[in-house]
């Protein structure tokens, strides 16, 4: 397919990257990128970090408006897609319909809103508009309560603390970032945040939010501002209505094709087979969405039948600490901490992930070690004293 109509639903980093990669691969047909927000496609990771300090929306922009004209990419912003009809290959949105030969779903996620009374008093941190509201609210605030001790909640907490606010984080799980890092790394960041003067409450389910703060574990935490960072859920409703297979995301095969061969899915909304284990995974990751975009662009433009094999990696900047994760571990994995603080996670006998803080070398080495779904064994790493370089490649 070199000239069919491609429609991309979602103008976040994944959708934008798909359009960019298609043109870079030489795709000549019409491309339409449709997004519900009114902003040009922008980077989301800085919203919980640099943007809160600077308020510079320009520096988040992934491409200038002129780029879309130059590249002949039709950009429809402020247009929520309302229906996908695979039978007629049409997408309906608020101001019209689009016919596609291939559809790319890059619908991302939205904030999880737990059933907590008074949650309307809490601010979200998901979109540029959310971040702008929050940034302005922080100017007059002295104290802030954060619901959720995951990446976003802790990144925000570090910024707020850096700006001199009194910060309390209420995390329902027994440890921080429990879904994505080892217990050792949770502990490390618990100490870091406490040392910064942040109050961290663990096993602390929030039972109420009101204009004066939150109630967690029966005790009231006063706060001028409450931020909700309790995780996300994938936007799958449209795909489900269209009859596509769903499994914690829009289900795809190793080529990132959904159950409909005219529809691909990409990024945070896609559940795809993990190259290392074959298990279906859904990653909330800029890297994954970028790599997905490249694979899909090669398939659509050059007919490539490559399978997706990229090593997942993640990062989180919390104050001066850059946490980097190579690979993908699950909470039950065994974790071993090296003397210098790098953590090696194992699923059974096999390496699943390596976590580091301010250690880009080990991080990059770990990514090389896990290339193509490789899974070195614990014995090998143990024999090497968990030094990576001697067994690289």
């Amino acid at each position, binding site marked *: 397919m070199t000239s069919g109509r491609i429609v991309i639903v979602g103008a976040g980093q994944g959708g934008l990257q798909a359009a960019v990669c298609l043109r870079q691969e030489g795709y000549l047909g019409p491309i339409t990128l449709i997004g519900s927000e009114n902003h040009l496609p922008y980077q989301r990771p800085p919203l919980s970090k640099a943007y809160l300090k600077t308020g510079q929306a320009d520096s988040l922009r*992934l491409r*200038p408006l002129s780029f879309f004209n130059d590249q002949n990419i039709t950009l429809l912003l402020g247009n929520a897609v309302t229906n996908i009809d695979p039978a007629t290959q049409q997408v309906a949105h608020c101001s019209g319909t689009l016919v596609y030969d291939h559809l790319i779903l890059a619908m991302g996620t939205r904030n999880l809103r737990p059933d907590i009374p008074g949650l309307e008093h809490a601010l979200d941190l998901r979109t540029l508009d959310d971040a702008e509201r929050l940034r302005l609210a922080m100017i007059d605030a002295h104290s802030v309560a954060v619901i959720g001790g995951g990446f976003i909640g802790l990144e925000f907490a570090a910024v707020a603390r850096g700006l001199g606010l009194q910060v309390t984080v209420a995390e329902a799980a027994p440890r921080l970032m429990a879904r994505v890092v080892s217990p050792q790394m949770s502990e490390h960041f618990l100490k870091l945040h406490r040392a910064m003067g942040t109050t961290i409450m663990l096993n602390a389910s929030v039972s109420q939010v009101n204009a004066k703060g939150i109630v967690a574990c029966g005790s009231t935490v006063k706060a001028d501002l409450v931020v909700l960072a309790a995780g996300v859920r994938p936007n799958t409703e449209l795909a489900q209505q269209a009859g596509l297979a769903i499994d914690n995301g829009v289900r795809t095969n190793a080529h990132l094709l959904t159950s409909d061969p005219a529809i691909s899915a990409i990024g945070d909304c896609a559940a795809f087979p993990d190259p290392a284990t074959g298990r279906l995974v859904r990653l909330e990751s800029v*890297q994954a969405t970028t790599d997905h975009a490249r694979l899909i662009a090669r398939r659509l433009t050059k007919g490539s039948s490559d399978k997706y094999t990229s090593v997942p990696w993640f990062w989180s*900047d919390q104050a001066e600490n850059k946490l980097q994760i190579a690979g993908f571990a699950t909470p039950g994995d065994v974790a071993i901490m090296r003397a210098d603080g790098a953590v090696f996670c194992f699923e059974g006998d096999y390496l699943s992930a390596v976590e580091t803080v301010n250690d880009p070398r080990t991080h990059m*080495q770990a990514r090389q070690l896990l290339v193509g779904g490789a899974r070195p064994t614990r014995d090998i790493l143990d024999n090497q004293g968990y030094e990576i370089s001697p067994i690289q490649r």
Partner: protein
Amino acid sequence: MIKVTYIQPDGREATVKARPGDSVMQTALNNNVPGIIAECGGSMACATCHVYVAEAWQTQAGARKDGEEDMLDCAMSEMRDTSRLSCQIKLTEALDGLRVYLPEEQG
């Protein structure tokens, strides 16, 4: 007006206009220069904006930042003396005319 020239591995050149304060990475993205992936958007978490600075510009481009060398050392294409992460080179008038070579592979 700041101009930057990006040279592809096959020798093709693209000279583009840059805004002061933008990085060499951002300028490449704004102008759809292929070969710069910039997965992490400039937060020094990946090594997919690797460039080789032309030798004549090495001094003006400045020294590598903390951690940059570690990232470059493990980048997909080999690290050389002239290697930089282009997200870490901020453009000023002093860099008008800068020439950078793109590596074979980024990530």
